């Protein structure tokens, strides 16, 4: 038993058991429709999965956990806004946003990588602040963006883009519903999960190509890489650029699934849980695999997704329990940051 736990990893094992426990309680103790719950878990996994995937190239390239992922998200948001403003709907809107967001992300990622190169050793700290700064700077951008499409702007002649843009009629849930089939009262978001897993596959394959292996080598041991003729600087930049591009794509997918495009402060709130999910999957500051992404996102998102309705239901069943409604949100804070703390205080192997 112990051996099995060691192999799975204590964090993952405990969380998996906890998740199953939650599900068990939900089925047994509440009237909630488990099929809907499970469907939600799947959807949320797919929604966030690409963002978690985005962290991998950066870790592999040796720059640590990319806390600056909000930068990539903003690029994706910008791409989305452009297409929404032009009124382009449906698949063209969706994929157009991804492509444009990705392109902007590539440029931004390149600039970001130049900065990180100058601050080697403190990438994570600087990344956090790049994230904050990007969000604040973008907020100014959203306020002055000359949008033509009235649906995007504050009503009654207000200034700038709204906090939340409604995707109804554009490409809301386009991927989610694609080839989806019902499970009980819920549905299996085939398109969403397939797209995510496809990207995971592509990244995984990339990491086994010549360039991808050069990237991993540069991150694992820069001096070894140098002595093998690898351009370490270029590889680190590549990792950051890929990370930013995937971040851009990731937020577009997230938004389409959620049904809303969230501007202003929102990207900040997403950075830390994304990192936590990756770490839960078993990654560290220096090691990240695709399996970490898949397992981590599923576990993290499922625990969160299950606990909210579960607690709400238990509250309704109990007397005066409304006060406890905030527990899942708080638990999310505690778990995410606790995990990251743990990862930071682990001693690195010499």
């Amino acid at each position, binding site marked *: 038993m112990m051996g099995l736990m060691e192999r799975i990893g204590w964090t993952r094992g405990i969380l998996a058991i906890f998740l199953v426990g939650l599900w068990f309680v939900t089925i047994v103790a509440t009237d909630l429709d488990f099929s809907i719950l499970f469907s939600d878990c799947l959807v949320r996994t797919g929604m966030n999965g690409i963002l978690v995937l985005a962290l991998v190239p950066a870790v592999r390239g040796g720059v640590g956990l990319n806390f600056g992922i909000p930068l990539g998200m903003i690029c994706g948001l910008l791409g989305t806004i452009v297409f929404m403003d032009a009124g382009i709907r449906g698949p063209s809107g969706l994929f157009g946003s991804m492509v444009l967001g990705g392109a902007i992300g590539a440029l931004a990622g390149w600039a970001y990588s130049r900065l990180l190169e100058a601050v080697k050793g403190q990438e994570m700290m600087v990344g956090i602040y790049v994230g904050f700064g990007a969000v604040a700077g973008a907020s100014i951008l959203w306020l002055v963006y000359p949008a033509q499409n009235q649906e995007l702007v504050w009503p009654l002649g207000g200034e700038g883009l709204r906090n939340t843009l409604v995707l109804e009629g554009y490409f809301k849930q386009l991927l989610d519903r694609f080839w989806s089939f019902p499970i009980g009262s819920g549905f299996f978001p085939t398109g969403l999960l397939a797209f995510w897993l496809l990207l995971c596959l592509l990244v995984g394959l990339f990491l086994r190509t010549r360039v991808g292996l050069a990237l991993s080598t540069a991150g694992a041991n820069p001096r*070894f890489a140098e002595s093998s003729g690898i351009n370490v600087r270029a590889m680190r930049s590549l990792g950051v650029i890929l990370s930013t591009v995937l971040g851009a794509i990731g937020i577009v997918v997230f938004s389409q699934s959620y049904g809303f495009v969230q501007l202003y402060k929102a990207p900040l709130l997403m950075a830390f849980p994304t990192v936590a999910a990756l770490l839960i999957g078993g990654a560290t500051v220096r090691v990240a695999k695709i399996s970490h992404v898949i397992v981590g996102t599923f576990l993290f998102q499922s625990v969160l997704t299950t606990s909210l309705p579960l607690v709400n239901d238990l509250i309704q069943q109990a007397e005066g329990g409304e006060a406890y409604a905030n527990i899942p949100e708080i638990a999310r804070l505690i778990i995410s940051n606790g995990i990251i703390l743990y990862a930071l205080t682990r001693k690195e*192997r010499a």
Partner: protein
Amino acid sequence: MTNPALKLTDIRKSYFGNAVLKGVSLEVAPGEIHALVGENGAGKSTLMNILFGMPVIEETGGFEGTITVGGEAIHPKTPSDAMEHGVGMVHQEFMLLPGFSVAENIKLNREPVRKNIVSLLTGPVGPVSRALSSLDLARMNSESRISLDRIGMSLSEKTKLAGLPVGHMQFVEIAREVDKKTAKLMVFDEPTAVLTETEAAELVATMKALAADGIAILFISHRLDEVLEVADRITILRDGELVECLDQADASIVKIAALMIGRDLPPRELPARTERQDSRPLLSVQNLFVDMPGEEVQGASFDVYPGEILGIAGLAGQGKLGIANGVIGLYPTRGEIRLDDKPLSLGQTLSILQEGLGYVSEDRRQVGLLLDESIEFNIVATAMQVRGKFLKGSGPFALYDQKAARAHANRLIEEFDIRCQGPSQAVRRLSGGNQQKVCLARAFTLEPKLLFVSEPTRGVDVGAKDRVLNLLVDLNRERNTTIVLISSELAELRQISDRIAVVSGGQVAGILPPDAPDVDFGLLFSGEAVRS
């Protein structure tokens, strides 16, 4: 000797089963200046760490043997311990704080204090009271002044350390030890390594002054001329053992150098070699300058002929390690390098490797291996990037052909006799010798025309050393790979090289046949020949 200041008896120390000190004994009289010399790895630093109670010693199993300082037996487990018992140490990397003044450094953690209101409130004595007492700056300065004067330093005790020239910093450390007033023995670890000529002369004068004051001095140095000038007696360590203890009168540079490096190994049976084709050099290095900290190359020139094994020897810090690193392009390099009469672009590692040079680094763990990767990946990684081997297809997005890599790795594991659990085992788990073989296998996979191998037997146990050397010889004879072998083990170089170049002062001091007498080597090692 009656009442020596320091007496070491049968000091033994092993690191993870590797015996680094094998029973060293020596005595230093009060007022005597005693030099300790030896190659890197001979055990000098370990001996100093033991004497000074450095934590790394306790953490790795402690030591055996006895130490007496001024007649009192001690077994220091922390530097404070050693200091309390009269051992003062002036380190190679200064233990100084740049943001503090000279006086603050001299009085580090021994600052004189004055009572103030708060400290009185917290009791007349005790750690809290002392902690909250104000620093007595006046006394700090005046007492530091006295210590500085005692060693003849005129610099102000109030200047901040950060601005001082390196040589002066050294003196601040000395002043600190002198200020402790309890030092019976002072140990100087490579004190002149970073000093200019004038500063070094000042230091020597200071040491003599301290000795005249009755303090015993133990000093480690690579600069044999200084050693001769100032030491009363000289102990030579080699391979963790005391080779000899010479009086100043009996010593000469050449003699010392010869004792440091000379070791007799049984002659090796070398397989015959096919006739050498031509007398044109395969690699020609002209006026090489390499900025590798600690191993600078300052105008080295030499040729390497096809099919030969050229050994490169020299004392630590003289530049032999810088040569290979510079040629491959890992450190800033100037000069001219021609391979097959074609000039190489300096610093462009990828193109240099593609032209046919290979390299096995002296730093096996940090540079030579990806410790957490499999054996097979380590073996093929470089060849994959440089030659596009072990890939399906071509171009940057060609996929890794793991099957081919595994097959190749299996072959080499057998050929090189790499003791492991299989090709997918992480390299970290292997023994030093086997790790070294993986490094060699990696270089071999590159199929270079000329291979630089740096310190291949360092940190490798005796049995494996043999096998590694055999591998190199086989590589040379069977595949006609030209080898440049850089090593601090002259004995090994003499066993397998065709010619041996000696590097001293960053330049090639001379080239000798392997059977040249020890004295000739000693002469070149010491740099006498180059300077005269």
